[in-house]
C-alpha cells in the first residue's frame, strides 16, 4: 500500500515538475536598456509592427523564435491573445499589403539572448532557463 502511494506520489511529482519545466518565457531587453517594465499591449504592439518604439521613444526592434516553437506560440497567446493560426493570418495581411514583415527569427533562446545583449534597441522573449546577466528580464504587466 505504502509502495503504491509512493509510486503515485512520484508520478505526480514528475508530472508537476514536467509542467514547470515546459518552457516558461521571459521578455528581455539589453542590460543597457533603461526599461524595467512594459504592459502586454506595449510589448505586443512592437512585435506586431504597430509601434516601432519603446515607451520613452527609443527605437525598438523585435526578434522571434522559429515558427512552430512552443515558446513562440505561448508568447503570442499571452501577450497578443493570438493562436498560431491568427498570427499567420495577421502577418498575411501585413505582408501582402506591403505594411510590414514579421520580426527576424533566430534559431534558439541562446542565439536571441546574444543578439539582444549586443543591441540596446532590441526586444525578445526567451526560455527563462537561458536568462543571464547580459540581458534584463522586464516585467510584463497585464
Amino acid at each position, binding site marked *: 500500500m505504502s509502495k503504491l502511494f509512493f509510486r503515485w506520489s512520484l508520478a505526480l511529482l514528475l508530472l508537476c515538475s514536467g509542467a514547470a519545466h515546459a518552457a516558461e518565457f521571459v521578455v528581455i531587453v539589453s542590460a543597457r536598456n533603461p526599461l524595467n517594465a512594459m504592459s502586454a*499591449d506595449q510589448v505586443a504592439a512592437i512585435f506586431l509592427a*504597430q509601434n*516601432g518604439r519603446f515607451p520613452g521613444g527609443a527605437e525598438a526592434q523585435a526578434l522571434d523564435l522559429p515558427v512552430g516553437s512552443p515558446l513562440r506560440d505561448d508568447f503570442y497567446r499571452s501577450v497578443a491573445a493570438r493562436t498560431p493560426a491568427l498570427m*499567420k493570418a495577421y502577418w498575411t*495581411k501585413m505582408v*501582402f*499589403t506591403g505594411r510590414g514583415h514579421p520580426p527576424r527569427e533566430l534559431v534558439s533562446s541562446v542565439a536571441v539572448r546574444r543578439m539582444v545583449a549586443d543591441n540596446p534597441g532590441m526586444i525578445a522573449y526567451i526560455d527563462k532557463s537561458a536568462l543571464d546577466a547580459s540581458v534584463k528580464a522586464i516585467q510584463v504587466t497585464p
Partner: protein
Amino acid sequence: MILDFAPERAAMATLMMLSCCAALAGNATDSEAPGAAPRWTLGGFGTLAAVHSNNDQADFTAHALSPGAAGYSRAWSAQVDSRVGAQLDVRFNSQWSAVLQLLSERGLRGTYRPVVEWANLQYQATPDLSLRVGRITLPLFLAGDYRKVGYALPWVRPPVEVYGAIPLSSSDGVDASYRWQAGATNNVTQVFYGRTDIPATPGARARSHGLTGLSNTTTSGALTVRASLLRAQLSVDVARQLFDGLRGFGAQGESLAQRYELENKRSFVAAAGFSYDPGQWFVMGEAGRMNTDSHLGDKTVGYLSAGYRHRDLTPYLVYSSSHANVATSVAGLELSGLPAPQAAAGAALNAGLNQLLAAIPRQHTISAGVRWDLRPGYAFKLQYDRITPHQGSSGTFINVQPGFRSGQPVAVLSAALDFVF
C-alpha cells in the same frame, strides 16, 4: 512619369525601379550590419473555390471587376472566388524596399491573365514615416487592401454590398504612411494621391484622376478602428449608346444624359469600421457611403459580423446591406406628343435607363459560415448566403435576365480553400 504607367508596363517599370534602387543601395553607406546585401522574399496566396447559386435568372459575382458568375451562366462556378497571387519583396537596406505583386483571377475578358496588383518602391524616411511611389491597393474599408487574400479574412469573401460597391481598386501614384502613438493607442495615418485606368467592362475602361484619399487606422489592444475618405474625378464609359440616344431627344435628353452619365464625375467614398478581437471571438462592422453622381448612384452600405473560435473552427455570421439614396426608377423622357416611331425609340431608351438604375443595389444579405484552420497556412471555409435584392433592384447581381424577380431571396453556397506560402 511613374504616375502614368499602364498595367502592361508596370512590371517593367518596377524592374527598372528595382535596378535603380540596387544602384542606390550600392552607393549608400548603410550602417545596418546584417542585411548589407539586398534581401529577396517571395511569397504567395491563393483561393480555390466553388460557388453555387439557386437563381438561374442572374449571376452572383463577388466583384463587378472580376465577374466570376454563378447562377445564370452556370449553376456551379469555380471562377467567382478562385485566384492566385505571388509577391516579390526586395529589401535593399533599412530604408529602401520594393514590392511587386501579381494576381491571376478571372478578368473582364474571361481570362486569367496576371495583373499587377501592387508595384511600388518604398522609402522609410524615419522609423515611423514611409513613402511609396507606384501602385497601391486602395485602403478603403477595414480589409480593402487585402480583400483578395482569402486566408487573411474570416469569411469566403468580404460582404459584396460593401466591397463590391465601387469600380476602383487601386491607385497609381504616391502615398505616405505615418505611424504614431497617442495614449494607449497605436495609429497609422495614410494619405495617397494618384490616378487609375483599368478595364471596367469588356468594352469600357474605368478612369479616375485626382484620386485623393486619407485613411486612419487606430489599434488599442483588441480594438481596431479604421476610417477612410476618398475623392476622385471618375469616368466609366459604359452604356455609351444609351446616352447618345438620349442626347438625340433635345434638351430633356441632354439633361438626363448629364445627370446619369459617368463622365468625369466628382465621386467620393467615406467609410468607418471597427473590429474587436480578443482572441476567443470577434465582432466587426463597417458603414460607408459612396456617391458617384451618376447611374451608379448614391449608396449607403454596411455590415455587421461576429464569430466564435473553438479549436480550429470559427463559425461566423454576417448581416450586410446596401441602401440607395437616390431614385432607382425614373420617368425618363417625356414622350407624349411625339410621333409614334420616335416615341417607341424613346420608350426603349427609358427602359434602358431604368435597367441601369435598377443595378444600384437595394439589397440585404444574411450569411452563415465556418472557417476551419486545417493546417498552418491553409483554411477551408463553407458559407451560405441568403441574398435579397428588393424594391425592384437587381442588387449586386450581373447578367440579369428578364425573368429575374426582385424581392425573391437567392441562396448562394460557397466552399473555399485558402492558402498562403
